[in-house]
């Protein structure tokens, strides 16, 4: 089900429906009261209010079909699909195409952002795929704000990963999220290329 709402483009969210009552017609009340990650009114209801209050530009808010508990097979399929999209991002030279691919990933992994972290930590994956997954993961965690708090526990070990390329991905993710406080921490990174990149980001931000 889709709802046309009048909101600023940067406030676009993909809101998830109610997993326990798939037959129940969607309403904002229902959606919020029975929201699957248990954030209740303080979560999606507030977001919806914000969308309405900040209404300026027209955009589409999508209420996706209810998500049922995923089987390990489904989750593995999501992981494989995500790796392929990340490879498409790496192959691409076109920033607009990259933005579309990233949106596609964020939409599909909505609520399963930890998959990015698992890819980044998987030694079987290509090192640049892992580093890009780390970048996307960190950018997502900080874009989600308080609703991504449960993912922060996965972000910290990535920041200290033994691979400098993965740490570079993490640093770029913080930069994407505009978190300059975390970027500054990388000035002391043991690898000179990572530390130099942190300095460059901070200089560009000034």
């Amino acid at each position, binding site marked *: 089900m889709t709802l046309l709402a009048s909101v600023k483009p940067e406030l676009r969210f993909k809101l998830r429906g109610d997993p326990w009552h798939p037959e129940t017609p969607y309403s904002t009340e229902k959606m919020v009261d029975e929201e699957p990650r248990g954030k209740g009114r303080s979560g999606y209801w507030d977001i919806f209010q914000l969308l309405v209050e900040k209404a300026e530009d027209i955009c589409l808010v999508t209420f996706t079909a209810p998500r049922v508990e995923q089987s390990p097979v489904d989750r593995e399929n999501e992981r494989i699909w995500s790796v392929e999209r990340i*490879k498409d*991002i*790496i*192959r*691409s*030279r*076109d*920033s*607009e195409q*990259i933005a579309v691919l990233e949106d596609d990933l964020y939409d599909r992994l909505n609520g399963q952002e930890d998959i990015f972290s698992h890819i980044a930590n998987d*030694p079987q*994956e*290509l*090192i*640049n*795929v892992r*580093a*890009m997954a780390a*970048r996307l993961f960190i950018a997502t965690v900080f874009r989600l704000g308080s609703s991504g708090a449960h993912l922060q526990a996965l972000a910290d070990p990535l920041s200290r990963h*033994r*691979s*400098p*390329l*993965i740490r*570079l*991905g993490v640093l*770029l993710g913080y930069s994407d999220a505009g978190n300059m406080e975390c970027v500054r921490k990388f000035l002391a990174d043991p*690898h000179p*290329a*990572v530390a130099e990149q942190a300095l*460059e980001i901070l*200089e*560009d931000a000034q």
Partner: protein
Amino acid sequence: MPSSNGINGHRHKNRQCNCLKALTNLLDTFVNRPRRRDSLHDQSQKKSFLVHFLGKPPSVLQIQDDPTAEHTLLEATCLELEPREVDKGWASYWEATTPESEENINAGFAARRPHKQKLLVLRVPKSTVVRSGIEIQAKADQEAFRCISDLHRLLDLSSKASRMQLATEIWNIIKSGESGLGKIHYSIKKKDIIPLVTSVYDRCSRDGFQPETHTASQWARDAFEKR
């Protein structure tokens, strides 16, 4: 009959020998010349680089001593060399014959990007690509600055084998620390982009190749006007 056959056979063999000698002489004449040409060609190739712009960072080439990268290094490099689906196996490269032309190429590419962005540059000696047996086609890019439009090249990297070959050569150069070739990979910082595009704009204009600014992004056109 047998002797006659033998004599005829001997004569025939003699004729064959003479023909072979003549052929050998002829081959010597023509094969040696191209050899000399090849060596000149090799020399010019050694001075040429094929420049390629990498996509969104992090790139595996940015950190060349990552201990966790070793076992997937070549495969990861292959992925970054892989042409996009729309390119049908042909990857876009630029041939730089002088340091100035390399600067022009970097500036021309940067100016067409929608945003002022850091450039990640891969710079492979042309001789390496030729030695790898990868087909190179000259394909002018009419949208590029006029001073570089004829330097555009397409490399046939449609097969995994060709990408693997190139990736192997790239890492051989990196690991051997080959001197005299300069860095095989470097980056141009965001803050250095505007000075680069404006200086190249001036140089191309001075050389009679006034860059076509309509294909440049707005930020670059603004920079040309402000200079």
